[in-house]
C-alpha cells in the first residue's frame, strides 16, 4: 500500500488512473529529456525516485512544466519529507510514499513543509 502526500497531508491513492490504461505514464529517473515530450498529453505522469539522493526527478518535473505539461504530476518512491517543498516547487502536485516511510516520517513532518510557497528565492527571482 502507499500514501499520497499533498499540501493537505496524507491521503489514500484514490484518483490515480490505472498505469496500464495509457492515461498515466510512468518514467524512471534516468529518462532522457527528449523522451519527456511523449508524455505531454497524458492525464498523469509519475516520476520514480529510486533514492532520495537522486535529484534527477526534480529537473524532469521542471522540464515537463516548462514544456507545457498541465496534467497531474506525481513523485513516487524514496522522497523524504525534507524534499516535499522542492518537489512542489519543481512542479509536482503530490508525492507517493510507501507505508514504511509514512510510518517513519509521519504526517506532521510533511505538513511542516506544506508552506512551500514561502521563503522561495526562485519565485522572487523569476517574477
Amino acid at each position, binding site marked *: 500500500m502507499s500514501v499520497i502526500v499533498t499540501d493537505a497531508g496524507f491521503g489514500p491513492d484514490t484518483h490515480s488512473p490505472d498505469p496500464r490504461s495509457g492515461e498515466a505514464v510512468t518514467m524512471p529517473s534516468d529518462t*532522457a*529529456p527528449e523522451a519527456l515530450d511523449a508524455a505531454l498529453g497524458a492525464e498523469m505522469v509519475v516520476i520514480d525516485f529510486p533514492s*532520495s*539522493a*537522486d*535529484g*534527477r526527478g*526534480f*529537473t*524532469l518535473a*521542471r*522540464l515537463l512544466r*516548462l*514544456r507545457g505539461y498541465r496534467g497531474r504530476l506525481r513523485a513516487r518512491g524514496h522522497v*523524504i*519529507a*525534507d*524534499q516535499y*517543498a*522542492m*518537489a512542489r*516547487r*519543481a512542479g509536482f502536485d503530490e508525492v507517493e510514499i510507501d507505508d514504511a516511510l509514512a510510518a*517513519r*516520517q*509521519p504526517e506532521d*513532518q510533511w505538513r*511542516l513543509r506544506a508552506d512551500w510557497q*514561502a*521563503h*522561495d*528565492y*526562485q519565485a*522572487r*527571482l*523569476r*517574477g
Partner: protein
Amino acid sequence: MYRYTDFDAGFVAERNRQFRAQVARRIDGSLTEDEFKPLRLMNGLYLQLHAYMLRVAIPYGTLDSRQMRQLAQIAERWDKGYGHFTTRQNIQFNWPVLGDVPDILDALAEVEMHAIQTSGNTIRNVTADHFAGAAADEVADPRPVAELIRQWSTDHPEFQFLPRKFKIAVTGSPADRAVTAAHDIGLRIVRAADGGIAYQVLVGGGLGRTPMIGKVLHDALPEADLLPYLEAIVSVWNLLGRRDNKYKARIKITVHEHGIDEIRRLVEARFAETRAAFSGIDQVMLAGIRAAFAPPAFRDAPVDAYHAARDADPVFRAWTDSNLAAHRAEGYAIVQVSLKAHGATPGDASALQMRVLADVAERYGHDELRISHEQNVVLPHVHLSDLPALHAILRAHGLGTANIGKVSDIIACPGMDYCALATARSIPVAQEIALRFDALKIEHQVGDLKIKISGCINACGHHHVGHIGILGLDRAGVENYQITLGGDQGPDAALGQRTGPGFSADEIVPAVERIVETYLAERAGAEEDFLATFRRIGMAPFKAALYDAPDKEARADAA
C-alpha cells in the same frame, strides 16, 4: 556591503529551524543516517577524522567587523578558540558538537551569515576576487552578481541533489584572482562590444584526481541572460552527469566525455527553455544589490607619514613591499594580512587575532575585510597614512608577516591532521618549508613563488596550479610526496607537470630547496620570476637537480 533583506533574514531563520528539527529527527529515528547525511552537508556540517566540522560561508569573501567578531565568539564558545580559513572563502570550525550546531547557526544568522550549501552535492558558496571593488585593474565589481547567484542557487529546488558538488567563481579583473578556470563554472566579467559588461563563461574546470582547465562555453554572455544560462548548464548536467561513479560525476568529466561542442549545443537548447521562465525582475534586483556595494567615501589626505615610515623602518618597508596591492583610489592601498607566520598552520586565526582584525578594519579599513582563496585576510581599503599604525598593531599580534606571494605564503589543505580522506600530512610540510626558508633568509631574493600542498588526490590545496605543487600520497603505509612544477592559477591557468618519483617526508623540504636553488642559478635576472624561468628552461634542469646521482648519494649520506 550587501545587507540582508527581510526575505533573506526570514529564509535563514526558517532554514535554521528546519535544521534544528532535522537533528532532532535524526536522533528519534525519523531520518536514517543516509537520509540525514545530505541534509547536514547542505547545512555545512561535515564529519571529519576526529569530530564534526562546520564550514561557514563567507559569501564572495566579504565580511565586516561585526561578523568577524561573531566568528571569534563562536570559536571561543563552541570550538577550541580558533578557526581555519579555507581556499574557497569559508571558515571551518573543527570541533563543534552536533547538538550545539543549531545554536551556532542561529549565532551566525544574527550577523547575516550561514553555512548553507558549503558542502554536499549542491551549488557551493560562490567565490569572487578578494580585491573586488578595490583593485585598480578591475572591469567591474564581481560581488553583486555573486550575491545574485547566491540567492538563485540557495535552496534551488532542482539542484539540491546533484550528481556531485558544483563550484562557481566570478572575477571582474583580467588578472583573475578567483582561479575561475579551476571551477565547475568560471565567470569572467568582460567589456562587451557596446561598452557595457558581459560574461565569459568557462565550464568543466576542476582539480581533484582528474585535473582539468575550464573550457570556454560562451565568450560574451549578456548579463540579463546569466541566471537562465547558469540554470541551463546545471540542468543539462543534472540529467547527463554520471551517478554511477562519484569520481566521474563532476561536470569536468561530463564535458570531457561529451565534448565542449556537444555540451554547448545541449546548453543552448536548454537555455531556450529556461530563458522564458525569467521575467527580468532579477535584473531589477541586481541593480539594487549593486547599489549596496557602492564604494566607501575615500578620503583625500597627505601620505608623508607613510613615506617617512618607509624610509625610517626597514621592517615596515619590507612588509609594504610584499603585502600591498594597487588600489584604484589615490592615496589608498589594498593590504593583505598574512595568516602564514613562519611555522604556523596556514589559514588558522585565533579568536584574539579575529578580534584584532575586526578592530583594525573598523579603525583603518572602512569596516571591510576579505578572505582570499590563498587563506589570507585582506583589508581592501586602507589609506597610506594609516599603514604605520596598522602595521604596528598587526605585528604585535603575530599578523605582520611580510611574505605575501612568497615561498612561505603556502596554501595547504588540512591533510592528515584533520581530514578523514587524507593520505599524508600537509600542514607540517608547509610549516617546515616556511621555517627552512625563513632560516635561509632568501625569501625576498626568490620573489614570487606559490607553493601549494594537498594531503590527498582530492587536491583541496590546489597543488596542480601551484608554481611548485606538492601532493602527499600513501605508498605502502609511508608518506610520499609528489612534486609538480609550472602550475599557474592566473588568467592563463596551467596544470603543473610532475618532476618524477616522489619524496619521503624527510626528503621533501630539501627537494623544494634544490628546486629553488636551481631557479636562482638559472634565472635571467631578479625580474624573471619562478614561473617565467620554468617556462623558458623547462623541466630538465630541475629534474637533474632533484634526481641526478651525486645528489642522490649526498642524500643517502645525509640519511
